[in-house]
């Protein structure tokens, strides 16, 4: 694997770290299996790309993408809370609908951002090579996001959200409006995922309607790899695990695909992903002795 390929993998891992943290919020904190992310990731990319081409400031475009993602999360939450649709099914409905929404937003399946100003433009040409600039820049944003989410989850408000996912009956007895927590949590989760999509569009120079396929698996893979490596030792460690898991996942994929010996090609990506996630799930059992 070349240096450029390695840092490319790190960069992509950092972009998807936002997805991983979002998935962590939904799956682990709220205990809400949310597939909306497969739609909110490309939604973030689409909104950002269209706005940047229209001449909007790329930072503002990313913020709008987050709002759009939050709205998608709220739709899923509403289907579940207000209309009592099973959480998994509610998120699938939103995800399917978002495919059409994303096509409407872009007006076509693919929007290119060649030569457009992005959040990264001011940092290119400062002396560092481009393939260092991107992971560094995104890395700083990831650190900020992790700190903000960590402080939130350890605040009074965050505690209410964690209790909602862990023991809703107890949370209500303590005066927590659990329905509101689900709305809030799904909004934050999908806003983070959409921000990941916005970064994806700006670093890769395009938004594509199909780029969301499998986002949930990648996010879950990152969460699970992180948990396998670092164990359950508090919120901050879990969040760092999400980021680490996301980066390691990308490096592992890159390694698998770039090793000629294995004879894998790009189209094997999904299989390799499934194998990796399975491995991460089985590993803790193997360690405890006995896979049975």
């Amino acid at each position, binding site marked *: 694997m070349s240096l450029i390929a390695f840092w490319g993998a790190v960069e992509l891992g950092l972009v998807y770290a936002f997805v991983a943290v979002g998935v962590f919020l939904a799956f682990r904190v709220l205990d809400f299996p949310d597939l909306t992310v497969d739609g909110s990731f490309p939604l973030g990319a689409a909104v950002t790309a269209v706005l940047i081409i229209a001449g909007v400031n790329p930072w503002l475009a990313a913020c709008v993408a987050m709002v759009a993602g939050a709205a998608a999360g709220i739709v899923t939450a509403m289907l579940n809370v207000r209309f009592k649709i099973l959480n998994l099914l509610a998120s699938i409905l939103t995800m399917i609908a978002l495919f059409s929404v994303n096509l409407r937003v872009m007006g076509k399946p693919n929007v290119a951002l060649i030569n457009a100003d992005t959040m990264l433009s001011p940092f290119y040409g400062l002396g560092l090579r481009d393939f260092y600039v991107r992971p560094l820049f995104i890395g700083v944003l990831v650190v900020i996001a992790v700190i903000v989410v960590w*402080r*939130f989850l*350890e*605040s*009074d*408000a*965050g*505690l*209410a959200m*964690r*209790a909602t996912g*862990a*023991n809703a*009956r*107890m*949370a*209500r*007895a*303590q*005066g*927590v*409006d*659990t329905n509101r927590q689900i709305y809030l949590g799904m909004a934050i989760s999908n806003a983070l995922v959409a921000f990941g999509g916005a970064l994806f569009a700006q670093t890769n120079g395009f938004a594509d309607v199909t780029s969301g396929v499998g986002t949930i698996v990648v996010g879950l893979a990152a969460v699970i790899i992180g948990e396998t490596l670092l164990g359950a030792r508090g919120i901050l460690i879990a969040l760092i695990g999400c980021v680490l898991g996301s980066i390691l996942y990308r490096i592992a994929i890159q390694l698998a695909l770039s090793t000629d010996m294995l004879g894998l090609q790009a189209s094997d990506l999904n299989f390799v992903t499934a194998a990796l996630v399975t491995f991460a799930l089985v590993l803790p059992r193997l360690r405890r002795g006995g896979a049975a």
Partner: protein
Amino acid sequence: MISVNNIEVIFGKGTPLQKQALNGVSLTIEQGSFVTVIGSNGAGKSTLLGVLAGDVLPSAGQVTIGKTDVTRKGTAARAGLVARVFQDPLTGSCGALSIEENLALAARRGEARGLASALGPKRREHFRERIGELNLGLENRMGDRMDLLSGGQRQAVSLVMATLAGSEVLLLDEHTAALDPGMAEFVMNLTQKIVSERKLTTMMVTHSMRQALDYGHRTIMLHGGEIVLDVAGDSRKELQVEDLIAMFRRIRGQTLDDDALLIG
């Protein structure tokens, strides 16, 4: 003060399984009074507690806690008025959170929750002190996950949690039923101490007639969704467990077959 006026609760209305759980129950519990509630399975004890807690909204009647009409308020909306300890130790606290996080959650019951850190140094110290009063050695395990504790320890912590924030009423839902006898006694003594120290208006549902007569100022017996016995003062002091059992037999018009009622 709690005031319950002509409460009707019907489960499964309009279905073949329709059941009248509470049938025109009226009850007033004065400020600072400790009331115990007994009754066989299906008598309506849990439903009455649910009506006060907000889990069950009555189809008719009125519920007032303190000065607030809470008849149509859900559990979360009235949590500022109601402190509660559940029967199942796993329900009353959050196993995935640490002891001190559970306490922090309970300390803001019924209040707005902001973005300030849930565990500042001052709060930590306060929680440590309160848990230290239990003499269970838990004050050195404040960061441990709640699910590492035994059922009795969890109930003891739940009792502390119930008193961290102010409330108009304390509801105890057979909160010693899942514990071994030694731990049940410890939790009951702790309950007694907390209730009398803080002069809490308390309603305790119990399966044990012994408990019902030994603790509190007043005992109520429910049967078929109605109050069939309401004793306090001297007449209650003279009452024995045997008298209660005899009364049960008369009401039911049959031999007593519910073993749980005879325990302790």
